[in-house]
């Protein structure tokens, strides 16, 4: 009896191992959550007849791809920030691809110089302030957050989160290492509580009166505003959204990208490129703002009405690659100031 059960289990194990992937489908290593990319992939399959398979993980897929080497089944890499995308580039895991569509639709500062990776959507790091306790226009620049008048008023997620790290990198790019460190120290000394939670939790803290100011990604505002949970809609209503650094002559608000590239040893490169092209097409670009309140990268596609209703903003046009390169220095500053 026991032997039979063991054999059965081993047989089943065999079945599981032979679950091979079909050749007419492309394989995706994704740092972006399945339920966020599923609508895109469905639309892609409908349009092209090419099926997709996904592995999602927040960390380590670059190492998996690297040790699989030439044997890797992966075709496309998708990430939600420039930091992780750059790791693939740095390890030499991405193929240089030629695509007229990608080259003409995606602006230069949002893709790599050698055509290995491409931004597919933009998200801006914005300042959320309490409608009740901070009047409009009191904070205009990201630099203002270090002003001692906001002591005990700011909430933030930990500095070493990718979004904050990229933000610090953008401050380094604008002002140099020393001033960036002074700025980060100033922000930390203004914190109302130990850095914790994610961006959504910071808005909640504003609503609850724990703090008056927070730094968040723009799409969280949209998600809260249209949440199915009435409590979350109240949090959104309690905050005012400010795009920082918008005055004439200022550099514009810091943006990060979600993006993708083609795996170096992909066996289905033409199909993989098709997926990236599809993701940059107007149809998919509109989906980004519908599903996740992100801004289109495609210069021919205007932001959705909802996004436009939050106000027009000018973005910091610094090359996103530069931000990725500065992230190590940014992390060092974050460690030093204890953010």
């Amino acid at each position, binding site marked *: 009896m026991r032997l039979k059960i063991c054999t059965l*289990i081993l047989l*089943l*194990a065999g079945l*599981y*191992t032979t*679950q*091979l*992937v079909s050749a007419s489908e492309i*394989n995706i290593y994704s740092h972006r*959550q*399945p*339920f966020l990319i599923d609508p895109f992939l469905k639309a892609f399959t409908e349009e092209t007849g090419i099926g997709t*398979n*996904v*592995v*999602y*993980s*927040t*960390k*380590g*897929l670059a*190492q*998996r791809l*690297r*040790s*699989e*080497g*030439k*044997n*890797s*089944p992966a075709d496309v890499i998708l990430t939600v920030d420039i*930091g*992780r995308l*750059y*790791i693939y580039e740095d390890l030499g895991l991405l193929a240089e691809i030629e695509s007229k569509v990608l080259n003409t639709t995606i602006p230069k500062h949002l893709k790599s110089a050698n055509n290995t990776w491409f931004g597919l959507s933009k998200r801006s790091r914005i300042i959320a302030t309490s409608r009740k306790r901070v009047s409009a226009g009191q904070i205009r620049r990201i630099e203002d957050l270090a002003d001692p008048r906001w002591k005990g008023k700011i909430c933030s*997620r*930990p500095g*070493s989160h*990718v979004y904050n*790290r990229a933000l610090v990198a953008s401050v380094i790019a604008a002002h140099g290492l020393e001033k960036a460190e002074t700025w980060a120290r100033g922000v930390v000394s203004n914190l109302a509580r*130990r*850095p*914790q*939670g*994610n961006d*959504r939790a910071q808005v*909640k*803290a504003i*609503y*609850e*009166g*724990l703090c008056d100011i927070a730094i968040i990604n723009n799409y969280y505002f949209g998600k809260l505003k249209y949440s199915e949970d009435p409590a979350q809609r109240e949090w959104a209503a309690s905050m005012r959204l400010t795009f920082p650094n918008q005055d004439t002559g200022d550099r514009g608000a810091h943006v990060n990208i979600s993006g993708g590239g083609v795996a170096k040893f992909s066996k289905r490169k033409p199909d993989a490129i098709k997926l990236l092209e599809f993701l940059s097409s107007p149809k998919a670009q509109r989906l980004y703002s519908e599903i996740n309140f992100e801004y289109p990268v495609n210069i021919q596609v205007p932001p959705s009405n909802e996004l436009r209703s939050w106000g027009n903003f000018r973005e910091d046009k610094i090359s996103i690659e530069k931000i990725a390169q500065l*992230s*190590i220095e*940014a*992390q*060092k500053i974050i*460690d*030093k100031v*204890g953010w």
Partner: protein
Amino acid sequence: MIRLAGKSNMKLLKLDPVVFLVSATILFAILLVSPVCALFVMSLKSSEGIWQHLIDTVLLKYILNTVTLMGGVALLSLMIAIIPAWLISNYYFPFCRTLDWILILPAACPAYLVAYAYTDVLEYAGVVQKLIRYLFDFSSPDQYYFPEVRSIWGAIFVMSFVLYPYIYVLARTAFRAAPASLYETAILYKKSIFVNVGLPLARPAIFAGLALVCMEVVSDFGTVEYFSLETLTLGIFNVWIGMNSITSAAQLSVVTFIFIITLLLVEIKSRAASKYYDTSRGQSSPLAKRIYGKAATAAVLICFLPPLLGFFIPICILISNSLYAFQYEPFTNFFRPFLNTIFVSATCALFVVLLSFLLVSSSKESRSNWINWLVGLSSTGYAFPGTMLAIGVVIAVGYTDQLISYLNSIAGIFPDDFYLGGTYAALLFAYIVRFQAIGFGAVSSGMQKIAPNLLSVSRCLGKSYVGTTRNVTLPLLMPYLLAGGLLVFVDTMKELPMTLLLRPFNFETLATQAYQYAHSELMAEASIPAILIILSGLIPVIFLNNFLRKA
């Protein structure tokens, strides 16, 4: 040696099952150690000055936080595991049989989900504080004191109440197996049966459990990330992703690893002087003493508190969260992940128990130091954070695949495109490497209690090694094998970081599903797979408990 008696040495070398046992052990141990080796090799490269930066800034903070967390969880979980285990195995009071199995329930709850649940209720915006503000008419956080959930104390609380069953299961098994004669002797000499007999006898089992708890704490990522506690594990990821240095990340995890291993070695050394054999099979176990009145009430409360905080309250929070999601989330979405979860957990538990038995037996039989070392090393995967161990597995599997493709290029042994990477086999291998320690701890603490003369007697009576194993060792070990298997089963069900990274395409388990929802703060949706994890963990818990009671 007895096994050589009456036979020629030469003949034995060929047939001796012990030789076979040891060879198999060496093979499997090397396989199990390979991912850990891969991490060590990775850590040998230069870190390009990152260490200096870490020492100057955050390293001390990481270490202090880690030590505080580990020490706190160790103390609290020992307390809430040993006292109920002692009460349950030595006293008879109302509900004691029910409480016995209820006490194991928190083992089915992933720590990070319990952390989510408690934060939801206890934070400033949570129900409890809202109620306090409403009752006392407060309007801001400055007006009253309430402990911060997202703190190191919160983490100690959550982890202790979720992890204590590791100690409880093993301690109770050991307390039950203690011979009545020793207790009677202690009573005659007016010594405390708890301090002088129970604890020393159960010490190997208790420490096996404690070691698991400590390793679990050090490798935990979900809870410390959610609470933003700057521990070594969190530091590893800051260095890896933030500084784009997998080398320094590997170095940091190796340092953590050495720290844990040193702790374990100290314990093993201190235990080496004394051995505890159970020579009393056939003797009755201590009779449970009946207690009444206040004492019984106190016992019930003491035994109910750990599962209340580690299981009932969190699951109530999860259920109340999920009620909303049940309306629009079809149950079929969770069917396939549910099957996957049960399948991976069952196979992993089976393999780990078999392997543990193999390794423990051969380390006992061979009596060679280096086999002992190798066997010990093969269960160290547990001391690494899951994601780092997954990287080790990825590298080890990558090399195997290169070997396969090389062999294919000369001989064509395997079908085309046959690789281990990205298959269920690779994932199963990773689970085994990680959870081997649990099976090994349980089985070897059982083996330590089998008196060697029992086996010698069996051999003298003419039974072969295999016969002795079948008729003497296995029956005596069965409760421990099952206890180990159960813990591995529920642990595999909860496992997250390795599953995320190593799974095949389109493969979801309940844990990955819960994580993805929780990651997007869709707590209602996340609660459904979380409840399923917990409920399916209950089945083996109840099954095992019935078995242990009969044994």
